[in-house]
């Protein structure tokens, strides 16, 4: 166990996250600026799990987050961009990390999210109408964190998610769409948040999910794909929520994630020896946290926030 702890380059990963935030002088970094809000969520949650959130100045982050809010109540990925449900959840999650949800006009934000529900229970991502079960998850997670689930028709929202279930037990982005581990996570977490996991055939879905583990120990997101660190989160959290995580080899998965670290400069990549990025660093660290890796804060598999943050919101401690 002691050996294992030393295998994770905690300080280097934290320094890497902080440095990425400051990089603005090349094409690769500016071309991601439209989703900076999600980047902030990935980076800051990683820091919190690593126990290093004090490396950033909360006031600076919060004032930037609030400057991304649109008059409609929704948040944009960056200042001056259009609002979207994706970035609205990220903004709420970032504020939750810092225990600053009280800076929000809760009703304004939740009205924006609730306004995106459609007649059939599904959710659009923004005013332009693209529908996806990811948006259902985001809406339910966000409104639950804000204690405003009563603003939507939860029953219909659940019904829509269930209509996206496939014969293999998995879920896709819309009814009939191919099962994909990312979408499965969204659907399972949404059902978990609303207490509706009884709609899931756990053995059937668990079977499909545990078949995502390939020989190297890593997990893929769909049949025949290469393993990828980000699926350590999506597949693993789903398996945990349906209580089937003992169907995969956890030791091999830990080793796979640790092999994807850049041990010199920090950061985690999708596969061993690839280039690192914040997205995969977050999913790698979050995956290790789900695997109860020593020294990391536990993370909640449905809300995708540290367990102490979730407890603070729901139990006031």
């Amino acid at each position, binding site marked *: *166990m002691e050996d294992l702890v030393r295998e994770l380059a905690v300080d280097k990963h934290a320094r890497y996250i902080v440095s990425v935030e400051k990089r603005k002088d*090349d*094409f690769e970094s*500016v*071309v991601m600026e*439209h*989703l900076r809000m999600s980047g902030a969520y990935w980076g800051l949650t990683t820091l919190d799990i690593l126990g290093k959130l004090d490396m950033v100045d909360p006031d600076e982050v919060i004032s930037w987050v609030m400057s991304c809010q649109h008059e409609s109540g929704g948040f*944009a*990925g960056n200042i*001056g*961009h*259009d609002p*979207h449900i994706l970035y609205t959840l990220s903004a709420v999650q970032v504020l939750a990390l810092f225990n600053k949800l009280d800076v929000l006009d809760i009703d304004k934000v939740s009205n924006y999210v609730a306004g995106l529900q459609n007649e059939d229970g599904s959710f659009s991502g*923004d005013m*332009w*109408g*693209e529908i996806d079960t990811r948006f259902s998850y985001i809406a339910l997670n966000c409104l639950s964190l804000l204690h405003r689930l009563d603003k939507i028709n939860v029953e219909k929202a659940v019904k829509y998610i269930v209509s996206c279930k496939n*014969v*293999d037990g998995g879920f*896709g*982005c*819309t009814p*009939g*769409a*191919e099962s*994909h581990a990312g979408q499965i996570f969204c659907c399972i977490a949404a059902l978990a948040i609303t207490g509706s996991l009884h709609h899931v055939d756990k*053995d*059937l879905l*668990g*079977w499909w999910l*545990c*078949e995502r583990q390939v020989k190297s120990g890593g997990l893929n997101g*769909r*049949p*025949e*794909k290469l393993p990828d660190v980000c699926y350590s989160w999506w597949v693993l959290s789903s398996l945990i929520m349906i209580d*089937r995580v*003992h*169907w995969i*080899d*956890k*030791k091999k998965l830990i080793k796979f994630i640790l092999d994807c670290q850049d041990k010199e400069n920090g950061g985690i990549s999708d596969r061993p020896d690839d280039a690192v990025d914040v997205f995969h660093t977050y999913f790698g660290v979050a995956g290790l946290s789900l*695997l*109860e890796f020593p020294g990391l804060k536990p993370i909640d598999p449905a809300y995708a926030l540290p367990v102490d943050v979730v407890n603070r919101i729901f139990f006031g401690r």
Partner: protein
Amino acid sequence: MTTQSSYSDQKGLNLLQELEYILDSDPLIDEVGFIHPSQFVALDHNGDDDLLQSEGGIESSRRLQANFSETGKLRFWCRDHKLGISTEVLFPLYNAAKHLFMDVIRQYKILRNVYGEKDNMESDVMKHSRALLLLSCDFGTAWNSRKMVLSKEQDLSRFMDELHFSALVLSYSPKSEQAWSQRRWVIRMLAERCPNLQDIVEKESDLVRKITERYKMNYRAWNHRGWLVSYMTISQVLNELNKSRHWASLHVADNSCFHYRRRLLLKIFSSKEGPSPVPNCTAILYQVWKEELDWDEMLIRRYMGREALWLHRRFLSLFWIKHIAIELHGVLSHLEDNTAQNNDLAYFLDNEFQLLENCSNIPDSDFEDGKAQAELSASHFSWLCKQCAKSLPTEIQEKLKTRDLKTLLHKMCPDKSFLWDDLGFDEPSANCIGPVDEN
């Protein structure tokens, strides 16, 4: 510091002007790519050969636009409606496109509901968002601004242009979620005007085929094609099944293509009922399903150890048992009594078991594909037994119980022993297997 940044601003603006000029002068550009300066040299060499070989050499050379900077470095390259952008200019170009776009969209949002001429502003929105999206394909605000202008104009030809433009973005970024989403938005707008979308559906399907040809296992692309199924007629569905069969047999690892076929098959299934049921649908369904099962079995035997083929089989066989052999029996004229039904089922399951026998007894099972084939076959048969057990008549259930799946599963896929144990496939004489993880 100020002089330096205004210098680079000016440089970016010049680059942007150049790019927009190229795009305006050739509206038929259908492919764009970022090119490292060293690759330009190679392109030029190929270009020379082309010029020498083609009869219309002069015409081609007139169409060739190569744009050099003051220092003689190539920045853009355009020929035969293909555009290359040097990776060296991406950063200043992006900054210029973003700043101009953000400026004009801010003004447009303020003024768009105010009475007055806004044509220039609208054309600027379209122009700068176009340049920006060719550099950053998922810049959502830029896509939105285009929807804003297009929905105000409501011009059919402009909607068709937008389909062309998003295809151009997909040529360099085939997985761009926003570009695919933009197409769906345009098609929904068109569907409100012309209920007959057959042509568009055909063209979309063809575009996906072309894109997936170059970039495999593209979830977003195949999902787009699957989304089209709801707009298809039955004859189109049958046609799509035919058209994608050859492609699938050449890409047996691409689960998305097989999922697309599942969607088409389910569309036939759902067309036998509803307000306007398709005549003869049940017979078509029976025929098509049988062909698909045979075809899949042929591929399984030819390409060993391919997960996507076996997962396709799970779907096909479960559905066959539950909905065709059991539910539709009686509707089908040649299956009239229970014995016939049971015979059909028993025959089907015998065939599945035969396949399992053949695939799990590959002589040289040290060979990796052979091992994978054995694992997948054992897994398939037990999955099927588990899922359909309750739907089967008792005598067939009894017969299934005589098959010794437990030993097979533990032998073939020992790393999933917890799964087998939990699902009731526990090894009869279980030797003690320790827990996998006790951290």
